[in-house]
């Protein structure tokens, strides 16, 4: 009896490997190799156009970075952006998804509307946002109308605080639909029968949400919060665009922007790779932390 059981286990574990192998082969070629390559290059004084064999620096690039105020400013900018963006993203997208699912009418329309930023080409969205944030644009007009301060230029793209806030706003706009859609899929996967049973037991909507919806949605919440966190730590396009449009760089010089400037603009590929590896370790740590604290894998009905 025991032997047979372990036979099935063995067979299933083999199938587990079969199922993950195709993806693993793919990742080896298109992801693991480039990452290992970046880690290797981070040990050299590699210039992007140089054909000469680069000098070996050991941890020299890392030492330089850890003592560079510019790098620490980037760490600050990245963490401020991440905290200011990913928490509202997770909470608001969950809220919107729950509200949408509670509607009888207009579900489809609302989903589509929230998802519409994703339908818009990023290049064009950038142009539009720059027109909105132009001192003569609607950002100033509307804010001045709301707080009744006619004629004030709030310097959306210029003041250190405002420019950080504006990047968060654009990012929030761009990704809120993503996470709403994922949450809706998660909510739709929860069996209706559970709700009906709860209603028969006399539970009010609030109780249903906290006792049934949220626990069953745990894997989705973990998915969204890890994805939102990683995306925010990796943010690049929004900041790049703002700097191109004339914003001061220091307040929003996130690590990825620094990597781009160091590697592509200043040609210091080795140092840029070292920065990527540091960012990699940071992301790995926070992902691990989220898995550890959520224990989302133990789901019970």
């Amino acid at each position, binding site marked *: 009896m025991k032997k047979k059981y372990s036979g099935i286990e063995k067979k299933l574990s083999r199938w587990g490997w079969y199922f993950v192998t*195709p993806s693993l082969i793919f990742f080896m070629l298109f992801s693991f190799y480039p990452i290992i390559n970046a880690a290797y290059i981070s040990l050299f004084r590699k210039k992007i156009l*140089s054909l000469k064999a680069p000098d070996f620096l050991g941890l020299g690039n890392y030492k330089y970075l850890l003592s560079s105020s510019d790098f620490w400013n980037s760490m600050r900018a990245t963490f401020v952006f991440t905290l200011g963006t990913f928490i509202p993203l997770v909470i608001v997208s969950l809220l919107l998804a729950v509200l949408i699912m509670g509607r009888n009418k207009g579900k489809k329309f609302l989903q589509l509307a929230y998802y519409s930023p994703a339908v818009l080409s990023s290049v064009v969205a950038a142009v539009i946002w720059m027109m909105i944030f*132009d001192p003569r644009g609607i950002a*100033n007009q509307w804010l001045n109308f709301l707080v009744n301060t*006619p004629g004030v230029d709030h310097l959306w793209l*210029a003041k250190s605080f405002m420019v950080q806030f504006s990047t968060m706003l654009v990012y929030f706009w761009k990704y809120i639909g993503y996470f709403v859609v994922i949450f809706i899929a998660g909510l739709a996967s929860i069996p209706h029968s559970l709700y009906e049973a709860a209603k028969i037991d006399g539970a009010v909507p609030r109780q249903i949400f906290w006792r049934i919806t949220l626990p069953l949605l745990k894997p989705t919440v973990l998915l969204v919060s890890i994805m939102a966190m990683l995306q925010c730590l990796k943010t690049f396009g929004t900041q790049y665009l703002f700097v191109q449009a004339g914003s001061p760089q220091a307040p929003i010089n996130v690590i990825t922007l620094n990597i781009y400037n160091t590697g592509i603009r*200043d040609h210091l590929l080795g140092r840029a790779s070292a920065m990527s590896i540091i960012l990699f370790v940071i992301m790995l740590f926070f992902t691990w932390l989220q898995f550890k604290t959520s224990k989302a894998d133990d789901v019970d009905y």
Partner: protein
Amino acid sequence: MKKIIPILLTLIFLALPLFAAGQPEEEGSITITFWTHEDPNRTALEERYIKEFEAANPDVTIERVTNSSKKMPELLLTAFAANEGPHIFNTQIEDGYAYIANGRVAPVNLKAAGYSSTSDLKNAYVDGVLNAVTEGGDVYGLPLELTNWAPYVNKRVFRDAGLDPEKDYPKTWEDIVAVSEKMVLRKGDIITRRGFDFRFPYYLVSMVPMVEQLGGKLVSDDGKTAIINDKAWLTFLEFMADWGPNGKNLGSPTYKNGRKLFNMDNNDMGMCLSGLYQIGRIRADNKEFYDSGDWMVIPFPQFENAVEDVASAYYGHYYMVNNQKSSREQEVAWEFISYMLSHSEEYLSEVGLIQPTKALMSSETFKNIPYGDVFANDLAKGHMVYYAENSAKIQELMKEAVEGVLLSGIAPEKALASLKVKAQEVLDQQ
């Protein structure tokens, strides 16, 4: 069942070559790849040259690839880093230097380009314009375009502000402030009509000359010391601080750049800084405005107490050839480049690009270009933009300093001190 996965995998890998582009190489025939930035008018012109060149050289095919000018530097770097660069490409002056310094581009093939010697080649061009691509006596690139910038004036806005454009046009930076103050319209603090727009992202081309007028320098002649003459720099930074929202509030880099607005003549832009090519764009964007003659070009302003007459630095693009290609391909590449450049007058009249050969500058075509003389006079007063492997980094530091005083209200002394330290650090790292 188990067998399905290995079979599927094998199929996928067998299918790989099917998707890959087959490039059958014919004996003797060669394909030259040519990367350049997007410019619709130039495309029409150069596609024609390609056809003509291919007709004259039946064994040569030229593949012209265009990409947005913002993305081009990045694409080129990636391709060169992977040793897969194109045969021919063009870069901005400042970006080109690194390709020469790292030995990634080939010197001009004099025979293919139709010159008897290097000095013959240098003599054909206006003095100094090949400096940026000359290294160790060899020339590594030929200009696709080289221009300086000068203020474009909208006469209608001048008149609307009660000014006479013919008499009141600004000669000095102080004049620029004075006429701007008259032209500026605001709603509260928000400017709805600007008098003048600096060309903000291009600090090296448009603002370093302002410092030089006052006797300052970006980098010393020996290339070892950054930010020469504190007094000049301070005067310049104070001028910029005064320009911004914390001073006279005449404009800032966060407003949409003026060149495009200028063409539209929406009564929101009095003057903007641009090159000769802007003329063609006014014609394309707004025929009525172009024909009305209500616009003009004036010389680059000087400071009242300028110690030196300096006009805007040269902005430009050079054609270069990848030296990782076979010598025959390099030769054909240079032949093709010089075939294109033999149409300088057409480049000027059709697209507004100056390829500064002595022949072109003294040609009838150039004399007939409206305001060509304004640009030519300024050209003699300017020099090549600062080019080095670190010029992009230096430009960013300058942006930080100028925007610091202009937008964030940082004291000019403080901004200068920080600029000096950081720029010196960049120079020392070389």
